């Protein structure tokens, strides 16, 4: 196998004195979709946010161990979290477009942060990103209208497009469909398979079917521990740990 895109080595995460993630080791290969599953409060979000250093913004939060993205320790000395975050896209649980910006400005907001001013280039990237998020046909005639005029599902795809626009090596998605209706959810699930061509996805989900449908590997968290990590087929059909089996068969969680 080639070198993994992401590797977490002995990662522990604390909120003050409270340990929320314990000694996690995990690797993610390029061009795959990886699901993080587990009961509420087990540390999935906490782990996900450690990867793009969002915990830097939470007073009292602390990350130990190494998280290596494409050969570079993201917590290494001299790493600027601001430039580091440009390499990682993030999609949140609730659609959160910038409400005072147009559809177009939302999509290119990351590029503008990176200093891109060239209109033609921005337009190009906006179209490509919106196509990538399967939203282009629905919004191509209203790029200049406020982003909040879109439906919830469209807003979430807009947020995906916004994340894609900076061509992230890794896309983090924290329950991206939990606030959406089944039709919008299906659209976003369909999207993910295509997105593997351009990026690598780490997705937190509570929906077992979603994990089984879209992901190549699955990691099962429980009380801050990574209990099991492996190919999705294997985790769902022949889990090695009985706690995993109990969870994926719906006996708890």
């Amino acid at each position, binding site marked *: 196998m080639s070198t993994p895109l992401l590797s977490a080595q002995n990662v522990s995460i604390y909120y003050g004195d409270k340990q929320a993630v314990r000694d996690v080791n995990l690797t993610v290969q390029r061009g795959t979709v990886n699901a993080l599953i587990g009961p509420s409060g087990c540390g999935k979000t906490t782990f996900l946010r450690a990867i793009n250093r969002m915990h830097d913004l939470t007073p009292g939060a602390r990350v130990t161990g190494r998280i290596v993205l494409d050969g570079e320790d993201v917590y290494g000395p001299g790493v600027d979290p*601001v430039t580091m*975050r440009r390499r990682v896209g993030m999609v*949140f649980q609730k*659609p*959160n477009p910038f*409400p005072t910006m147009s559809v177009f400005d939302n999509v290119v907001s990351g590029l503008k942060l990176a200093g891109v001013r060239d209109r033609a280039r921005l337009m190009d990237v906006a179209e490509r990103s919106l196509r990538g998020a399967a939203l282009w046909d629905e919004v191509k005639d209203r790029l200049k209208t*406020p982003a909040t005029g879109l439906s919830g599902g469209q807003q979430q795809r807009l947020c995906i497009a916004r994340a894609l626009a900076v061509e992230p090596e890794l896309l983090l998605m924290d329950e991206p469909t939990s*606030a959406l209706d089944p039709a919008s959810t299906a659209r976003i699930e369909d999207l993910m398979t295509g997105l593997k061509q351009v990026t690598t996805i780490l997705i937190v989900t509570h929906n077992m079917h979603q994990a089984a449908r879209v992901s190549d590997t699955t990691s099962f968290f429980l009380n801050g521990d990574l209990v099991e990590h492996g190919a999705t087929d294997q985790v769902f059909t022949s889990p090695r740990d009985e706690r995993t089996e109990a969870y994926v068969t719906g006996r708890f969680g």
Partner: protein
Amino acid sequence: MNEPVRPRPLTRAPLSARSDRTFQGLILALASVIVLVFVLSVYQLGRESWPALREFGLSFYTERTWNPVSGQFGAAQMLIGTLVTSLAALVLSVPLAVASALFVAEYAPKWLANPVGYLIELLAAVPSVVYGLWALFVIAPILGRWQQGFFADPANVALYTRCQDLWNSGQTTLQCFFVPSAFDGRGLALAIIILTVMILPYTASVARDVIRLVPADQREAMYALGATKWEVISRAILPYARAGILGGVILALGRALGETLAVAMVIGDSQEIIKSLWGGASTMASVIANQFGDAQERLHRSSVVALGLGLFFLSVAVNFLARVVIARLTPKGIQ
């Protein structure tokens, strides 16, 4: 013996329905009182200003001469004075207020943020007259010293002489506008300074509250795209909060337009055309404060009240405009 059982809900429901109705009536009565007071004050203002408005017509608000001796009354000069002092104070105070709100909401550690926020709010609780005294005894001498220093230079004295000729003929130039015309520090500039401080807490505390209310996911979305703290503030937080901040600005403007006592104490009460930033001027409110007591003559008195009427409509217009603008700027339809 068996007592017949009474259905209990019947005795309870009408009671609560009755108290609901009583409460509703009370609220309605209170609301009507407010409307009544409003209508009565407009009526009274209108009645009292009628002699002046009949005499001068609407040109009362566009004429520049205000001369109680000759019985000539025009409010244009005070209207300009009101707008100039208020807008200048707004321009100076809004950046300060937003900066202090950002400091309190985004930068300061908690142990510092709360006391600083409290101090800023306290500024709003200081009585006008205290601001007026502070301006006269603290700020005016400082400005006065600067003005005296200005005249220590012979070249400036020559400039002053030239400007004075202009001023006497009722004119000014941009250069002369910034030449001091007095030595005691009082005047338009002092009024602007004091208004700036007085309205600062209104914008600052409203801005602080709306900045704190910007949802975390808006900030995080911007951070996750690779933004610095300042970029998060300027591209996510301030745009999201702009309508609310503008609400605070309008509140401050309303306050500045109507501020009376402190301005009346420091502005130099001159009804002549504004020729220098450092010279005397007057606002609608300051003229009311300074002249109402002495206005024995009927037309004079009525003209002073007409100033009040104009100020009233100016405030209403500002508030109306503010509502329109705020409604347009408020982010809508967030999922």
